[in-house]
């Protein structure tokens, strides 16, 4: 146990965090799997029986909680080799109609939360003169989709955070990367928080949003499971030099590629046509 590399992962109750924690533990890491609410730790506890995996509470929205968790890991393991910033959720609604509180809540987790954990862990990695940080970004950090504009904007921010932090940390032998999954089969969509204006049926965009929801909730047969993302995270963490970004899923690879070849006006036209279909649905 002593010479195993140590990983700290946020948001491990379900989905990508859950599978990443298990996979890393199986691959010889000592894993600190953290959850916002340890009452939800049953399934992970069961699945990880006998593995070098410990569960700790960590709510990325709260500074005190982040400090306590990171200090706990250092006390127990003495070091951190990898941080996986996975905790996140998606807001759904028209950009115009989110209240201040809704905007703040979305950023609190996806952006400020990610920064909070990173800020706490960086000094440790620096002292070790080694370490890796992986952010779970999204295809939504490369392209903006209707109905989830607020969520996309947080993931765009994560892209810029990765790009700048990657260069800032390099002289200290700390590597930073972003993993960009496309659509993945996890409870992510169920856990989505819909804008109050939409839930109460008083949105000016009501019908369009409903059509987008109906479209997006059709489970795609092509969407990979969270294990695929976990495998990519493991591959990144176990490589000698991490690339800047890793894409997971056909959509995450293809969409940006198509976009890359398209002139702006054509992309604009394509988006408009797609959005118009929701409107008329």
């Amino acid at each position, binding site marked *: 146990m002593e010479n195993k590399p140590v990983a700290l992962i946020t948001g491990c109750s379900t989905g990508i965090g859950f599978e990443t924690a298990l996979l890393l533990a199986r691959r010889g890491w000592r894993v600190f799997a953290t959850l916002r609410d340890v009452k939800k730790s049953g399934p992970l506890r069961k699945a990880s029986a006998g593995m070098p995996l410990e569960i700790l509470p960590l709510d990325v929205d709260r*500074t005190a909680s982040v400090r306590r968790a990171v200090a706990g890991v250092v006390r127990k393991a003495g070091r951190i080799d990898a941080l996986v910033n996975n905790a996140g959720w998606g807001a759904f609604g*028209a*950009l*115009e*109609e*989110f209240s*201040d509180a809704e*905007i*703040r809540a979305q*950023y609190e987790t996806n*952006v*400020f939360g990610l*920064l*909070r954990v*990173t*800020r706490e862990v*960086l*000094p440790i990695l*620096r002292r070790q003169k080694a370490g890796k940080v992986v952010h779970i970004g999204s295809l939504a950090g490369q392209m*903006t989709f*209707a109905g*989830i*504009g*607020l969520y*996309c*904007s*947080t*993931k*765009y*921010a*994560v*892209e*810029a*955070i990765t*790009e*700048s*932090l*990657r*260069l*800032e940390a*390099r*002289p*200290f*032998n700390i590597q930073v990367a972003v993993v960009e999954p496309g659509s993945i089969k996890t409870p992510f969509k169920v856990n989505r928080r819909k804008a109050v204006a939409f839930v109460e049926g008083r949105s*000016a*965009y009501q019908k*369009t949003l409903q059509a987008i929801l109906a479209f997006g909730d059709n489970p795609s047969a092509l969407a990979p499971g969270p294990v695929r993302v976990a495998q990519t995270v493991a591959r990144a963490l176990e490589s000698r030099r991490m*690339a*800047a*970004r890793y894409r997971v899923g056909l959509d995450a690879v293809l969409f940006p590629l198509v976009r*890359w070849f398209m002139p*702006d*006006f054509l*992309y*604009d036209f394509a*988006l*408009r046509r797609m*959005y*118009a279909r929701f*409107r008329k649905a």
Partner: protein
Amino acid sequence: MESNQVVLITGANSGFGLACAKALAERGFRVYGTYRNPRKAGPLRDLAAGLPVFPVLMDVNRTASVEKGVGRVLKREGKIDVLLNNAGFVVAGFWEDLSEEDTLAQFETNVFGVLRLARAVLPSMRKRGSGKIINIGSIAAFAATPVLGAYSATKSAVNSITEALRMETREWGVDVTEINPGEIQTNVVENTRLGRDVRSKSSPYRAFTESFERFAQERFRHAAPVGKLVQTVLKAVGDHPTKRRYLVKFEDRILYWMRWLMPDAVWEWALGLTFPWSKRV
């Protein structure tokens, strides 16, 4: 010319905002320019003495202030044809040198401020079936560098916000676009907020920050005058429909296309040639 067109410009007492207020008023627009600090409103008041420019008190960080300011314009004019979301500033420092408050302040103005203004003007624009929102982004949205990571993150988020709003509001006849300038001579450097620990003797990034500062000062010494930006704004105001995004200077276009064409590894190598931080410590 377009004598009855009403424009609302945030942050109009300085830099871009002030120059655009003058140019638009000279072309017959009725310009409402916001300021938040009466002691710094001098240049705007001087402008108002000879042109159809009307100063409005507004702090984009506060919802009540935004609603009140926009409400006053709507009451007087009955409409806002163009919103120029311009108020913004720069937080500088390596990520580890920024406090939570620094980061929050950066997003509060540059991102949440943009959303607040959009929320305040859109209902009236949708009702009239016309209107235009021009967000001032930055070339930093596409090219994140050390020291300006937080700023880049906010401008990347704005990039996504523009894209979402552009899709979502089109059916109401509202046009949303973005301008992404590179360095231009304004008060942006004087108004830059340094992260909490940037000047701290114990900051591990001290040497890097200093060399970056010298680099930035040099670049801003040769920055283009504000006239280039004004031309672009006038073009965006006049275009029906607008382009998806507007770049300002030739150098900005080169940078944009380089980033577009280069794989991450090549881009980072090229950045490393320009900046001195890639050495190990």
